[in-house]
């Protein structure tokens, strides 16, 4: 674990920020991104910040140099958006934006890190998916398709890279209190959750801690659910 380096996209707020803080606390080095890195309200000797818009090819190209110098052992694909509306009202722009930010970005970011991991014969690729990708959710055809895509991507890549000791998994949170769910969470939702509360970013971050560690060596190609029991297969 010591001296391992993690890249976290969308690390300035919400779940991403929770992941960054807990990785730093565990002693990891972290390269965290935001679309505007002046947005970060944290600093730490082991934390490096960078600008990145995962949808913008020029931004990704500029970021490539930073990543190859940093040479991360761990990638956390966290950046994501929702653009909810009933399918009948959904525009193709809403569809494209969500697929591009949540799914295409995972392709782009993984491309940037995988060669370095192959050389080290060690790597962890973790993408933040959603239970919406497995259970479906009205108003989220775009979002659930993007997250199901992330889960399936992870399974195929896990098979490709398994022989090189690189594990690929996704994490599917339920309702977590962040800007994304602001205004969506009410008592009705809480009642449907067996553990009777919405999650906080630490609930997701502690699963990330486990998945990046040596403790999870034998787990790959999985979608791990952290949702208080809301979605059970």
């Amino acid at each position, binding site marked *: 674990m010591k001296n391992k380096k993690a890249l976290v996209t969308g690390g300035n707020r919400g779940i991403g920020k929770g992941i960054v803080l807990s990785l730093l606390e565990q002693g990891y080095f972290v390269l965290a991104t935001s679309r505007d890195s002046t947005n970060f309200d944290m600093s730490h000797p082991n934390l490096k910040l960078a600008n990145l818009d995962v949808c913008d090819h020029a931004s990704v190209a500029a970021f490539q140099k930073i990543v190859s110098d940093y040479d991360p052992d761990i990638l956390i694909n966290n950046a994501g958006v929702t653009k909810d509306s009933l399918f009948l009202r959904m525009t193709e722009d809403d569809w494209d934006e969500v697929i591009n930010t949540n799914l295409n970005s995972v392709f782009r970011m993984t491309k940037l890190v995988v*060669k370095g991991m*192959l050389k080290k014969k060690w790597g962890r690729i973790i993408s933040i998916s959603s239970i919406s990708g497995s259970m479906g959710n009205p108003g989220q055809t775009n979002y659930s398709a993007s997250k199901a895509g992330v889960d399936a991507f992870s399974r195929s890549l896990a098979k*490709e*890279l398994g*022989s*090189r000791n690189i594990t690929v998994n996704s994490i599917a949170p339920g309702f977590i209190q962040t800007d994304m769910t602001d205004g969506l969470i009410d008592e009705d939702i809480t009642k449907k959750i067996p553990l009777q509360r919405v999650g906080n970013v630490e609930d997701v971050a502690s699963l990330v801690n486990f998945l990046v560690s040596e403790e999870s060596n034998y787990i790959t190609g999985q979608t791990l659910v952290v949702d208080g029991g809301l979605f059970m297969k």
Partner: protein
Amino acid sequence: MSEVLDKVVEIVCNQLSVNKEDVTPDSSFVEDLGADSLDTVELVMAFEEEFGLEIPDDEAENITTIKSAVDWIEKNS
């Protein structure tokens, strides 16, 4: 032996964990040296890095033996 051949053999031995003595110019990475499909991609990456070249995907497909690697590299460097 040419310098390129030396280097290619060294890279292949490293990547595939085989002994120099078991490698001839005609050795096929997959059939003779036990490479899997990911190994062949990694080999091409290692050649690119060592020789500072970019090997296009459709040409990389034809680099399947020590000799074909050496020939491509000598022709393109």
